[in-house]
């Protein structure tokens, strides 16, 4: 780790002032990803601005029947929060599918959104990586790319976003509340993370001097019919090869509303509203689910080591939608997939 300075922000306005005054500084909250990246010399901030003591730790009900989650609510507290367990069990399940309990105790809600890819070349400072060193090239495209993207990738970057929590937030149509020098704004979750294009060094549409203050959930929680299925190389404490968040509203055997988002397959949580639209009004059966999977994967592209992900995703989508329709969500502790 390089030497760096340290300062503590007292309130949100203070934090925005401090980051605006020093373009080489970075915010730190849980630190689970940033400290690791600093040990690897991938991140080299001149100064850390500690935002961990800001008053952003509450989960509050909003006037429209939804919830506002403070950006510093730890991942573990959020997963076990009674309102999340009861009304948004898809979110609770996805959070518990990620990391370890120690890391979930440390990691913040806002930080989870802002974590960087786990592409090994991004971490390896002696190999080219357009995300770490713009213009240097992508080592993953012709390298070991088993964990990489099959959707929305570019010639410059095939990295994936590593979060599980964000896949559920995408499916649930969350919003992200941010504050910057120009004031506060609210972003749709779909607009928060971006595809790599020819600027993979930029993960999100957050402006440089903005801070995430809250994540907001709409009233609709899909608590009756949901499932989060995560496929990985070991049963726990590993990043997804493919993960699927599925949520349905059923009327009899007919799909009234559907949500479908994937993790581990793209530079951002991959939600496909066209695939969701083909499910509406259809019977909740295997044939409908397979059609949605085919549509979602219509432009999927495999590389040397990850082409298996396309078929894995196809089967995973059908399985997860089936689990959701049958109200038998995937357990995150009993690992048998039913």
């Amino acid at each position, binding site marked *: 780790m390089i030497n760096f300075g340290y300062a503590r922000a007292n309130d949100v306005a203070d934090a925005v002032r401090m980051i605006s005054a020093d373009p080489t500084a970075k915010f730190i909250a849980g630190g689970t990803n940033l400290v690791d990246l600093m040990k690897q010399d991938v991140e080299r901030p001149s100064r850390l601005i500690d935002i961990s003591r800001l008053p952003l730790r509450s989960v509050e009900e909003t006037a429209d029947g939804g919830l506002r989650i403070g950006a510093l609510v730890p991942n573990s507290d959020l997963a076990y929060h009674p309102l999340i367990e009861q009304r948004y069990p898809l979110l609770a399940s996805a959070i518990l599918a990620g990391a370890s*309990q120690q890391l979930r105790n440390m990691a913040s809600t806002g930080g989870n959104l802002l974590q960087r890819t786990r592409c090994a070349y991004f971490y390896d400072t002696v190999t080219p990586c357009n995300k770490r060193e713009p213009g240097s090239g992508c080592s993953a495209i012709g390298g070991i790319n088993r964990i990489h993207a099959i959707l929305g990738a570019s010639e410059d970057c095939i990295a994936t976003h590593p979060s599980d929590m964000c896949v559920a937030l995408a499916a649930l149509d969350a919003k992200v509340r941010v504050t910057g020098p120009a004031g506060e704004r609210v972003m749709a979750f779909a607009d928060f993370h971006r595809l790599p294009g020819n600027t993979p060094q930029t993960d999100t549409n957050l402006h440089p001097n903005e801070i995430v203050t809250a994540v907001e959930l709409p009233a609709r929680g899909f608590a009756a019919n949901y499932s989060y299925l995560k496929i990985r190389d070991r049963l726990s404490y590993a990043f997804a090869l493919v993960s699927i968040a599925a949520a349905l509203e059923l009327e009899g055997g007919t799909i009234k509303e559907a949500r479908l988002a994937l993790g581990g397959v793209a530079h951002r949580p991959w939600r496909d509203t066209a695939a969701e639209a083909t499910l509406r009004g259809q019977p909740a059966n295997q044939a409908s689910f397979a059609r949605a999977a085919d549509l979602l994967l219509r432009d999927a592209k495999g590389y040397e080591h990850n082409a298996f992900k396309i078929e894995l995703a196809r089967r995973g989508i059908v399985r997860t939608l089936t689990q959701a329709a049958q109200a038998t969500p995937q357990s*995150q*502790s009993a690992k048998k997939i039913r």
Partner: protein
Amino acid sequence: MAQTSTERSKDKLLAPDKISVAMTVNGAEARLHVSPWTTLLDALRDHLDLTGTKKGCDHGQCGACTVLVDGRRVNSCLTLAVMKDGADITTIEGLAANDALHPLQQAFIDHDAFQCGYCTPGQICSAAGLIAEGKAKSADEIRELMSGNICRCGAYPNIVAAIQQAMGMMGGKS
């Protein structure tokens, strides 16, 4: 006059001031003077000589560095000491009450829940956190919520058995 290379490298090495931090560590007040980049793990081991907490991967992947901060288990290798000013820290050295082993320590001995022992302080602190959380009941749930602690000797079945014994003895309280 141009700077010599020695002077330049001195400039580069100018370190930001050290910062005073006060913590309660295993029930005792500890005052530290640390650099911003000193992790809680290094502060415990190198500043306070509490070497029970182990440095395994130093990247949050193995759990050997697990300690309790304000009663919650965390990876001390990814925690900056300056950010824990005022915190209450419990390490493996702080679990036993006087001469009586903590129920988890006794259970790990009873079940032979280790071979080389390097991961054991982290396993036991993590298990203490797990019991305090009260979320794990079945063996599956213990395995899942202990997955942040890797044991390369493969003592997992014995670790799960030890935690189940301690959980029964402690009535779910840490």
